[in-house]
């Protein structure tokens, strides 16, 4: 792997990491989108989408409520999607290592976001006098500094994670011993379990929601067995 292989992935991870909070929050950072874009960059869009769907099920649990601490999915889904798409024949364990790589990166990414917010506070404190005086330059530069730092955070996180995890994933796949179908079934079961739990947390207090959910399940299973 060369720097030229990592650079486009890192830039994509940076841009999508920026979308999570700073700009423009258009949800291009959702795993469904981010992983698909990473797959497209590798030349395997459908593989990216496949992993993105599994990650999206998990990401339903971690919505960006207020000042809560939440994982950073943008850069992480790029790392996971790129790793999975790099093995287009989908060997046994490819989805497992892709999802684990994304989840590990999202955990670290959440921590880097907390650090960034602390830095933003420190920069704001340093400019306190100028902000209290209503200095236009201070307000604008603080905003631009925060966004630039967030972009750099995403680029660095993606570059480091991809550089470390992609070779590790390849090594794991070379030594993988569990049946391919079973490996994938475990990933799907884990992802859908998180989604099920997340759905309950989100909607159990909404009047009538459980009936809508049950009706939806009936429709979902109808189409599943029809196909």
């Amino acid at each position, binding site marked *: 792997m060369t720097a030229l292989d990592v650079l486009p992935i890192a830039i994509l991870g940076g841009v999508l990491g920026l979308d999570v909070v700073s700009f423009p929050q258009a949800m291009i950072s959702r795993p469904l989108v981010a992983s698909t874009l990473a797959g497209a960059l590798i030349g395997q869009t459908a593989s990216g989408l496949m992993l993105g769907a599994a990650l999206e099920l998990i990401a339903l649990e971690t919505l960006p409520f207020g000042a809560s601490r939440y994982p950073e999915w943008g850069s992480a889904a790029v790392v996971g999607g790129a790793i999975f798409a790099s093995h287009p024949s989908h060997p046994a364990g490819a989805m497992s290592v892709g999802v684990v790589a994304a989840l590990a990166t999202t955990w670290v990414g959440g921590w880097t976001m907390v650090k960034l917010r602390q830095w933003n506070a420190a920069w704001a404190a340093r400019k306190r006098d100028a902000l209290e005086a*209503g200095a236009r330059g201070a307000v604008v530069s603080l905003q631009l500094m925060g966004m630039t730092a967030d972009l750099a955070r995403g680029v660095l996180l993606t570059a480091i994670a991809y550089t470390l995890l992609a070779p590790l994933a390849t090594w794991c796949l070379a030594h993988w011993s569990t049946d391919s179908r079973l490996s994938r079934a475990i990933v799907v079961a884990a992802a859908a379990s998180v989604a099920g739990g997340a759905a309950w947390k989100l909607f159990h207090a909404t009047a009538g929601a459980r009936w809508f959910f049950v009706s939806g399940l009936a429709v979902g299973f109808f189409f599943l067995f029809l196909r």
Partner: protein
Amino acid sequence: MTSAPASSSAAPAPSPAPELPFRTRLAVFIRLLAIQGSWNYEILLGNGIGFCLEPALRALPGGVHSPAFHQALARESRYFNAHPYLAAVAVGALARAELDGADPMRIERFRTALCGPLGSVGDRLVWAGWLPFCSLASLAVFGLGASPTVVVGLFLIVYNIGHLGLRLWGLNTGWTHGLRVASALGNPVLRRGPQQIGRLAALATGIAIPLALGRVIGPGRSFMGEVLVAVALGSFLIVRVQTRIEGWRLSLFVLAAVVLFSVIR
């Protein structure tokens, strides 16, 4: 949502909203997309509010070098908290109040009163409603076999119609109503929207989970029955242990253990 009307209902009826130049409105709108650019644990969204308002404040008498501009920008860059999309309501209303020359004390009270409602309504409407709904609807379409372009395009277009529409509505509503904007927060979409979208999202969850699961498992649907049983049990477990560990962390531990087992065995 009741604290805002209490503080602002005493405000006199605003005169008809003056026209804000299109370029200024556009600049404010674009800056709204970056409102959380310097989000931090001290002043939260505060600097972002000042950043978004700055193009509008240039219209104050004397322009950017006047004391009025500096005082207004300093006031607006202090602590503020709201949902990032619904913060547009605050930005519009505060721009109007500043340009109308409202009493600074009233503006301060107004800012304080607006934080809570804009945060809680936005969280319920967007993060707990619109986003999961769009995500799950796209997963259902994915499960039906749609191409990457259709799945991603559908998600981004539908989600952002709501996202950008809400920001635009918020900015216009805030500007039109000024300090009396609390009455506009009684909009049926904001009051009843979270419930309705929540029901639709529950429906989409039911449709999406089996379909997405079926497509990711792939042809032949190996272990489908076992997976369905595992999902039912796993969801139950995650709900039971939610106060101790989040589901995504639990799934990371489980999958990491599977990877270790599969590699070492």
